[in-house]
């Protein structure tokens, strides 16, 4: 985990202190800093407001086809931001700049907040809502005074993911020409091979991520859990009046149209308009490569996350430190991870451009999702079941194997699926680390998009969205993946 950070520090120290100061203090760096921070703040604010509102609507209003609606609003998570951008600019080539990036990134990241808020809303005791209403609070006041304080932690965790996503996003800002840290780092590296300056900028980015993680961590520790009864009623009386249902349906529909239907339709049209010349064998090979590399990455992430998650749950302070470190690494742009592992791999020749190193990069980049899932799932296994198992003659390891692991497994699986999904969408590190001849859907798509051959890129983009839709669908269906939800109250969390 320390590899990329050590690499960055070493590279930064390669340059003289004078040069370092110049890089940090120059006007351009300040502009990049302001742009990155403004973009992140705006996207986080908008995605949080829209995400919480959507989640509340899905949880409380009797929408037509509720399960389908829930699945559809989450599915944009399967579409990488660069595919979104590709779709919009292939239709509106003039779409460029800061506000276009805000629009695209809000569409891409809102599902993170929806997932987190929905998961938290399912755990809120509905009887508290009813009591609040009998005490004279209307629906809005009840939401702000009773519900929101209880879902705040989960929503903040979702917002943190949005912030880290925006900070490390490369595809959307590159295609839209917005100078954020990731784009600047990439340009420096590709344009002049100035790795020292790139490393300095990457370290500033790491510092920003660290500050954001620490702010989130502080708000979390200052908030309280509210549970006045051991039994909760979590099936609300759905709002059924026509006006509310109509407004909720229109809002959901608009979001699904913009975030899912539009890019998907465009990709399908492009696909069929170009069907005759598609190299299906290459498409299939790229899809298989994507699945293999991402699966391997998710597996390595799980192997690394299990001990960290278990030790954090047991209160180890070293593991807690590692947990924070995992989050900081999560915020690293893929290109920085790529650079670090290229340097690392080149020191061990046999590692360079191997599938193993690519999987390792995915694991490092997205381990935070896996550690979070392990930690949350383990913490939700009731202690009394562990105690009972001990009194029934089971040792600690037997209890872990027979009780803790089966109950936590669905949540851990959800986390692993999140890593799998993120790895499939990852672009910059994949571009740098993929073995020669081992093309993934993301690299193939990028190759064509970067030379403006949008029609040829479309099949790869469509295939990527379709493949990524499978884990997304499973993550959003706790009844399929998280069968333990009903007895350990709560599905795999994003936090």
């Amino acid at each position, binding site marked *: 985990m320390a590899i990329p950070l050590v690499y960055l520090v070493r590279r930064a120290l390669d340059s003289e202190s004078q040069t370092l100061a110049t890089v940090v203090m120059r006007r351009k760096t300040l502009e990049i800093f302001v742009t990155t921070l403004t973009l992140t703040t705006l996207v986080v604010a908008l995605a949080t407001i829209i995400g919480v509102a959507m989640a509340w609507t899905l949880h409380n209003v009797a929408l037509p086809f509720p399960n389908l609606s829930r699945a559809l609003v989450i599915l944009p998570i399967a579409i990488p931001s660069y595919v979104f951008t590709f779709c919009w600019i292939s239709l509106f080539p003039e779409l460029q700049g800061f506000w276009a990036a805000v629009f695209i990134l809000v569409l891409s990241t809102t599902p993170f907040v929806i997932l987190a808020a929905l998961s938290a809303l399912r755990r809120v005791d509905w009887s508290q809502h009813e009591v609040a209403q009998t005490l004279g609070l209307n629906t809005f006041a009840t939401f702000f005074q009773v519900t929101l304080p209880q879902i705040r932690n989960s929503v903040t965790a979702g917002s943190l993911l949005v912030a880290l996503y925006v900070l490390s996003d490369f595809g959307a800002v590159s295609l839209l020409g917005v100078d954020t840290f990731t784009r600047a780092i990439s340009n420096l590296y590709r344009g002049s091979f100035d790795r020292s300056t790139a490393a300095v900028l990457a370290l500033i980015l790491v510092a920003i991520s660290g500050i954001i993680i620490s702010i989130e961590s502080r708000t979390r520790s200052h908030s309280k859990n509210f549970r006045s009864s051991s039994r909760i009623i979590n099936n609300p009386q759905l709002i059924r009046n026509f006006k509310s249902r109509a407004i909720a349906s229109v809002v959901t529909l608009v979001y699904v149209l913009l975030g899912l239907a539009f890019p998907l339709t465009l990709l399908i049209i492009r696909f069929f308009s170009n069907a005759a010349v598609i190299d299906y064998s290459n498409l299939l090979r790229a899809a298989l490569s994507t699945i293999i590399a991402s699966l391997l990455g998710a597996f390595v992430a799980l192997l690394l996350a299990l001990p960290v998650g278990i030790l954090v749950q047991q209160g180890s302070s070293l593991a807690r430190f590692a947990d924070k470190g995992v989050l900081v690494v999560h915020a690293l742009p893929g290109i920085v991870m790529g650079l670090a592992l290229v340097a690392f791999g080149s020191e061990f020749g046999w590692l360079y451009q191997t599938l193993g190193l690519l999987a390792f990069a995915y694991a490092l980049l997205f381990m935070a999702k896996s550690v979070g899932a392990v930690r949350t799932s383990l913490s939700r296994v009731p202690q009394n079941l562990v105690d009972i198992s001990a009194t*029934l003659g089971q040792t600690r390891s037997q209890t872990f194997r027979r009780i803790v692991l089966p109950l936590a497994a669905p949540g851990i699986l959800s986390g692993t699926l999140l890593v799998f999904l993120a790895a499939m969408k990852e672009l910059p590190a994949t571009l740098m680390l993929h073995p020669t001849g081992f093309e993934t859907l993301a690299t193939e798509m990028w190759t064509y998009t970067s030379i403006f051959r949008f029609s040829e890129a479309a099949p790869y983009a469509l295939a990527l969205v379709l493949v990524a839709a499978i884990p997304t669908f499973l993550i959003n269906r706790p009844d399929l993946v998280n069968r333990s939800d009903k007895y350990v109250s709560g599905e795999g969390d994003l936090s």
Partner: protein
Amino acid sequence: MTSLEIRDLGVKFESRQILSKLNLTIEAGAFAAILGPSGCGKTTLLRTIAGLITPSEGTIRFGKQLVSVSSLVLPPHKRNIGYVPQEGGLFPHLNVAENVGFALGKKISRDERQSIIESMLTLVGLSGFEKRLPQELSGGQQTRIALARALAMKPAMVLLDEPFAALDQALRAGISEEVVALLKSTNTTTVMVTHDREDALVSADVIALMRSGSVVQSGTPAEVYLKPISADVAESTGDVVTIPAVQSNEGRYFSILHHSEGLPQDGLKGELLVRPEEIRISANSTASRVTATISRINYYGHDALLELEFAGMAKLIRARVAGPMNFEVGQTVFVEHQGPIRWVSGNATRE
């Protein structure tokens, strides 16, 4: 089955002393109830016996085996104890058969395992429930399956933590009776924690009364009910009335129940502990010439509690009458105490 002997047990959580100098002996095969109010340390005691909490001092013996002394504690998985927590604590990812067979291990054959599971389910009256998941069972069924799981490993002792607390009042009596009969039929030493005095009085061979982390009295249900060592202990096993009284220099007791003329000025002042059912009420004059006026009637169906107002005493005294109600508020009745004299002076009682 095994006996249980606890000596000078102490449990501390950080600076809070939860159990202190606790002593308790339970004979092998006995059904013991630990009775006490919420927060007195009952569950902590049960979890300490199970080995889930390490005591700070004292010893625990199962028969002749020392299972806990100082910080040397036999881990729970080596104690051969069946622990049934509130609401059963069934493993939600396992079906009924898997739950019941959980502790059987791999040393026995598949057929043997099956046969034990079947016999346990028959014992608790839930044959045919093998494939059901815990969440498909009612509260009472969950408690019985938890008991079957505990008994399947042939435990030396069964520990029940408020096993009937989550059940509806209607179900409670029936299930409690079944479970107790079952445990007594298997002759298993049982320790049940409860805050319900009826559960304890009906089920147990021995009742241990707990207050503030210690056992303050133990004995058969009749002993703790009829000979409580303090007013506080008397209240934990049933309704009790305290009546101001005076013990004369000759050793005679005077109270409003015995002498309508009032209390003598000389003698030792104290109180008498009287159970409401020991106060006899009659509409007609009997041997007693003490009278009182009924100020309130609480009717329970099978009996009623009357609040009696005595001339010259502000305190109201409750008396229990059984059978059909022949009294009304405002009526003057004759009152007679027919029970042992329990004298309370300071904090202790004497008969």
